[in-house]
């Protein structure tokens, strides 16, 4: 079966849970005090969606504002971006806006963006109203997910949605083999089994 290989990046303020979300999804692991990311990590997972399969190459970046210049190296040829904020931290939500702006002006034109309101297991400490977040994302025409890297809530669904939106946005290029996947382009190749998705059978 044809596999679409694509690069996605995680973006967002420091300590919102970028690494934790990626790790939960790819390895089903959660560490309360995940070591802080200075540069970037790389994880990969093959996702089965009804239309086909997508190899998500996840580039997990460091969050601090000062490293923006470095982060830009990672999102440059990305097909998808996951912008994460922490529902218990108002400032991290404000950063989402600036990331969206930056991606719209600097990243590839058809980049798929989803937003994750992470740490939804800490509902009591919530600082961002859910309706506010949803309304904001609706205006931006971006899907919003409530996630918890700790419990796993919403994580699978979010990555699946990201994978299928990327598939839809790029299926025109599928079949034009030989393009360079590393630069975020599409290749057709045999299905590789690295970290197989499949907790939910993949097709739902």
């Amino acid at each position, binding site marked *: 079966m044809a596999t679409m290989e694509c690069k996605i990046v995680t973006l967002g303020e*420091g*300590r919102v849970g970028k690494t934790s979300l990626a790790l939960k999804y790819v390895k089903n692991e959660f*560490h309360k*005090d*995940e*070591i*802080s990311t*200075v*540069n*970037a*990590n*790389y994880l*990969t997972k093959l996702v089965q969606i009804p239309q086909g399969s997508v190899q998500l*190459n996840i580039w997990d970046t*460091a*969050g*601090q504002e*000062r*490293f923006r*210049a*470095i982060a830009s*190296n990672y999102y440059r*040829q990305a097909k998808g971006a996951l912008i994460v904020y922490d529902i218990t931290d108002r400032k991290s939500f404000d950063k989402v806006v600036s990331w969206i702006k930056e991606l719209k002006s600097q990243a590839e034109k058809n980049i798929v963006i989803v937003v994750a309101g992470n740490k939804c297991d800490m509902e009591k400490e919530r600082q961002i109203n859910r309706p506010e977040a949803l309304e904001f994302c609706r205006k931006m025409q971006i899907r919003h997910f409530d996630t918890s890297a700790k419990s796993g809530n919403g994580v699978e669904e979010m990555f699946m949605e990201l994978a299928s939106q990327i598939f839809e946005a790029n299926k025109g290029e599928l079949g034009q083999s030989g393009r360079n996947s*590393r*630069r975020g382009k599409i290749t057709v190749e045999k299905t590789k089994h690295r970290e197989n998705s499949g907790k939910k059978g993949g097709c739902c």
Partner: protein
Amino acid sequence: MADICQILEEYVILDHQFPVFSKNEWVTILKDNDIFRLCPNRLRISVCNGIPSSLRGDIWVFLSRSSHLQASSKPYQEYVNGCDDCVEKMILKDIGRTFPHELLFKSFCGFGQTCMFNILKAYASYDSDIGYCQGMNFIVGTLLMYLSEEKAFWTFVSIMFEKNWRELFKEETPKLTKLLHSLKIKLKEKCPEVYNHLKSEGIEMTVFAKYFLTFFMCEQEKELGVRVLDSFLCFGENEILEIINTALLLERKKILGLKYEELFMFCAKELGKRCLDVIKGNIIHVNEIDDDYTML
């Protein structure tokens, strides 16, 4: 060919006419506290061979000359108390995420975490233009493994000011850009095939950024960060460039066979192990390397 030998020569300790400082000699050196009286060759060899762990903290203070700073500044505690609330919150987020597996920093709000928090707060008020930036936490954590809180603070200040490392953490990270550029130039000159391969695979020099930001302190080989800091305090930033460059050169055969993702992971993770070999001067197969090199 000449090039490769030249680079390696600096790391292969063949010359035994400069003996390593014994522990007793180090004690005397620390007592004298005059770095300019040391024989540079003996100092280099001694640092490459590893300084005695029990004296490491004092040797860092000596090499960074941080006691001078301490003597001529406001009391440390004033800086700890002068930190902005907003910055304090930012620091707090990273405290539990710095060396979470090390005994010293394991317990929440324990001794190690409290010292680290205080030092980072103090630094942010000492140097309010820079404040706090990720990466500093690992440097401070490592200093704390060998030094008391206050000495660790002044040694950190010395690294940031005397060695100008604060430019690395400034807005737009100007020094980081400069160092990565120097690394690129050096690599292009010393090992063009590795340079070309990284380039054609689309690997940016930023993959090496964290090595500068943390002196390799986030790597799996715990000894590495400590040894890099030894060398850095002694010989300066060029040493880090040389270490990375030489490690890349030594691993070039492997590197040339790697594709993008693997190559990225290799540069970001595995290279550390080779860097440790480089620092320790464990390059024993120089001839073998040269043979390989001719074959390429």
